[in-house]
């Protein structure tokens, strides 16, 4: 689908209609505000929170946790993934643990991590990093190992060293996988930070939701959910932009933002792997 003038109009119309219907249902059936607030009430809460600067303060904190966790977790995931893929010994000793941890819902560790590392920034960053770690680890491993046999043969026939094969073939070959991993890791890091804030924190949007829940401030919670989904969307777009930059050569990237109509058989490695990482790796 294209964003033609007509489609934009229709989309806007549908959005307004949905909001209006929601408002009408809440008013007509007099649904109590602590069950489902009307859009206007959510809007008011959002305005109050933003105007007072409270939301922004907590948002910055959560973003900081998320980004630090994302960077630390994906960097570690990338390097360990590389070590495992490239060294048989590392693989032999680490692989069992990786398998073990992969199916464990990492967020279940949040209570422990908060106990170990306190209510401050550290525990949130660690939890976010822990969840962001695995998509990168798995995708880097798969990407480095999936270099086409014929291409490896070609490099060998040119008398390329193992280092050259790594830098000139395996690493570029792994890029689509790594980018798909980053895509997932970004959202996972946000989940990790929020969950750790639920468990115990002094600042952050997750902590704010938790305290609003105690006060039955449902409008407030809705307004924060709105912010969180926007944040998720923006973070995702940022990764997507980076990905298009890095993978300029991948034909599927040209049409990454809108489903193309003319992609006959363009390889969509990145997309396939993203799906795979989402299936195999739990936050």
């Amino acid at each position, binding site marked *: 689908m294209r964003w033609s003038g007509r489609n934009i109009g229709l989309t806007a119309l549908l959005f307004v209609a949905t909001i209006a219907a929601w408002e009408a249902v809440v008013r007509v059936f007099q649904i109590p505000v602590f069950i489902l607030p009307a859009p206007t009430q959510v809007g008011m809460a959002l305005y109050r929170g933003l105007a007072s600067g409270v939301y922004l303060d907590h948002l910055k904190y959560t973003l900081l946790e998320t980004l630090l966790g994302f960077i630390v977790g994906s960097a570690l995931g990338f390097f360990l993934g590389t070590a495992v893929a490239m060294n048989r010994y590392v693989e032999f000793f680490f692989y069992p643990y990786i398998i073990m941890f992969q199916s464990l819902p990492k967020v279940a560790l949040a209570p422990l991590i908060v106990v170990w590392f306190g209510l401050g920034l550290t525990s949130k960053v660690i939890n976010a990093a822990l969840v962001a770690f695995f998509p990168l680890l798995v995708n880097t491993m798969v990407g480095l190992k999936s270099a*086409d046999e*014929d*291409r490896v*043969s*070609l*490099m*060998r*026939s*040119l*008398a*390329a060293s193992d280092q*050259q094969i790594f830098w*000139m*073939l395996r690493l*570029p070959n792994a*890029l689509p996988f790594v980018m798909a991993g980053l895509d997932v890791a970004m959202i996972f890091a946000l989940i990790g930070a929020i969950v750790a804030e639920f468990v115990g924190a002094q600042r952050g949007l997750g902590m704010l939701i938790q305290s609003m829940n105690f006060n039955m401030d449902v409008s407030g919670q809705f307004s924060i959910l709105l912010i969180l989904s926007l944040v998720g969307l923006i973070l995702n777009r940022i990764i997507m932009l980076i990905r298009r930059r890095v*993978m300029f*050569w*991948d*034909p599927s990237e040209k049409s990454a933002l809108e489903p193309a109509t003319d992609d006959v058989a*363009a390889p969509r490695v990145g997309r396939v792997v993203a799906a795979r990482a989402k299936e195999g790796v739990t936050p």
Partner: protein
Amino acid sequence: MAPVTTEAIAVHDLSKSYATRDGAVVALDRTTFDVAEGEFVSVVGPSGCGKSTLLKILAGILPASSGDARLRGTLIDGPRRDIGVVFQSPVLFPWRTVLDNVLLPVDVQRLDRGRYARVGADLLGLVGLRGFEQRYPWELSGGMQQRVAITRALVHDPAMLLMDEPFGALDAMTREHMNLELQRIWMERTKTVLFITHSIPEAVFLGDRVLVMTPRPGRLMDDVRVALPRPRSLDVMNTPEFGRHVHHIRALFNVKGGVDA
């Protein structure tokens, strides 16, 4: 043991079997042949008879099971820098432009990129790809990709060329054109060429000799000397001598029950 030789390629009693789940598969069975320096030798044989296996052994990327193979007198114990290899499929890197793909051997062997960029561009012109230097492989047709692969094998001017059905993916017209170009390049630069193909006419047209292989396990069935004068034009295909060679080789396959040759 193999005699000490200065032939470009000397293969003696070479065998290769692959270990598979249902036992060993013999792909190449006690094959012996020589290729003189500067000679153009075609290899034909039915599918699965071990042609690619032979090529990979000569390229130094696959160890033989027994027997020995020498290039210019030295036993093959790994890849060498004085050979160019063209595989059955183009094997291009999608993140490299056409020219950068051609320059891959230059990058790997740390040669002077500036100098070879010109060589590469000239060669691309020679195979009809002028103006495509900065394109990416996925913007090219299969036949164009294969021509890039051939250019890549030529760019560092190796003394020996090993080609595995390089024109298999091309249409008949382009294929004939490429045959003429390959002959021209070979005559200009005196290279030793081992050229694997499915096409008997192509083998006869290009080769000083045609090695004919049996169905699996691959062995040498015949070694046909083709004395047609060079440079050969496409018209030689209509001469009686050309026809005799093609007929002779085809008959060999029919006796042996070769299938798609």
